């Protein structure tokens, strides 16, 4: 019944999807946190930069960013991402870079909304006992903000998982690329689509459920 799967490395393709997701998630969390800190900082220039970054990046289609990374960064500017001879690895790293750049903007916005949920009094109290901006952000505000944005961050993570398919545009061998090849070569369109759809449901549904449950448990009760 599943003989159409023979000769195709479906698990391998999904493993690439998972790797893309995990690496990009870590990267965009770091960059997003830095951007969020910039957006709430007392230095106007940093605030301006953060705002500009978010508004520019999230209005460009991810497809444009990824295709640019391949045709622009790699081909014209010669950015090899540390893999000058291995084009597969290069494509993978470029895809991670693009996914990080794009999703950092959404992580930043999610975190900023979390910072807004921390009551004004807490920051005032932090200042009153003499904490500086970076101390009150690090010790008082961000820990609470992170706990209250687990669910929005989970949504970004789910979106990121699905968006890794865009890497198919530059030929990274992940799930969507394989599905495209398979439905073009095999007769069982519906069965193939069902397998890949199921793969993504398996990847995204537990993420949402677990992090949703965690978000409810860890949320600061006010």
């Amino acid at each position: 019944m599943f003989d159409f799967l023979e000769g195709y490395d479906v698990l391998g393709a999904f493993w690439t999807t998972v790797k893309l997701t995990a690496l990009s998630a870590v990267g965009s969390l770091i960059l997003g946190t830095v951007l969020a800190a910039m957006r709430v900082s007392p230095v106007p220039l940093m605030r301006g930069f953060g705002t500009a970054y978010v508004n520019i990046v999230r209005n460009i289609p991810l497809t444009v960013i990824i295709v640019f990374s391949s045709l622009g960064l790699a081909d014209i500017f010669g950015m090899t991402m540390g893999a000058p001879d291995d084009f597969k690895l290069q494509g993978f790293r470029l895809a991670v870079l693009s996914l990080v750049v794009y999703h950092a903007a959404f992580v930043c916005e999610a975190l900023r909304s979390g910072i807004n949920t921390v009551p004004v009094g807490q920051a005032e109290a932090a200042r009153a006992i003499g904490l500086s901006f970076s101390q009150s952000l690090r010790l008082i505000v961000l820990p609470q903000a992170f706990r209250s944005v687990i669910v929005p961050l989970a949504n970004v993570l789910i979106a990121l998982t699905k968006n890794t398919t865009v890497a198919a545009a530059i030929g990274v061998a992940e799930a969507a690329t394989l599905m495209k090849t398979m439905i073009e070569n095999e007769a069982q369109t519906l069965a193939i689509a069902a397998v890949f759809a199921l793969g993504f449901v398996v990847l995204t549904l537990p993420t949402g459920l677990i992090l949703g449950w965690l978000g409810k448990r860890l949320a600061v009760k006010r």
Partner: protein
Amino acid sequence: MTSVLYDAPGPRAKRRNVIFSVGFFVLLALFLWWIWRTMDDKGQLKWSLWEPFTTSDAWTTYLLPGLANTLKAAALAMVIALPLGALFGIARLSDHRWVRAPAGVVVEFFRSIPVLLLMLFANELYVRSTDIPSEERPLYAVVTGLVLYNASVLAEVVRAGILALPKGQTEAAYAVGLRKGQTMTSILLPQAVTVMLPAIVGQLVVIVKDTALGGVLLTFPELLNSRSTLAANYANVIASFIVVAAIFIVLNFALTSFASWLEGRLRRGKKSTGAVLGADEVELNPAEVRGSFGTGADGAIR
């Protein structure tokens, strides 16, 4: 909200801020200078690469038709997805389990798979079982993919919008003798749609961005696809990317600004006690409506 974290600066803080500003400015300037130098080194700043964009040819032959196709696909997808989404959103609120459960499964299913897979699949399906001409097919496939995904996102928005209305509205409607269907169509839905408007406009941004997928993988002649024809003609890859990205930014920024203006207006002029669904609730491309995934919005709309 930003001022929560810091006081009005005193003399020391002012000095520190100046130092930080200067430091950041220097870093930023170095970065920009580095980009400029690299572009110059690779000969990307030559006027001949940018000149095409000052002529009407590049616009009328490539960019504007591409933009028109992008907007066409986005508009079609929105117009079809909206009623479909409303239908499924209402179905998910039904009192009957046999309506509620299948609608829930359909919505959750299409929300959890990538739009790209839906587009590729729709394309293949049209190849095999319909006689849509091959030059029309990409548009059909792109719109189908967008509709399936966005209808299920909008279904959640509609559901959240209806749930955000105060319970008293339904109770009052029943009290004056309206039936269930009447309550939905003449009391709840009109209010929910008003409340949802910013979220719906925000979703348009997501749709516009997703059309670009069809351009690369299904050769749908939208903006990003026209870019490659243009670059093939003038050999200006970088310049064409920058111009196309700028068009997307302007277009989507206008939509986002309109959505937040609408949101502010609705919040101010609001007569009911229900919440207003902001653009940010669905804006996360292709993320979900706020609320935990799988359980719906559980009334946590802020």
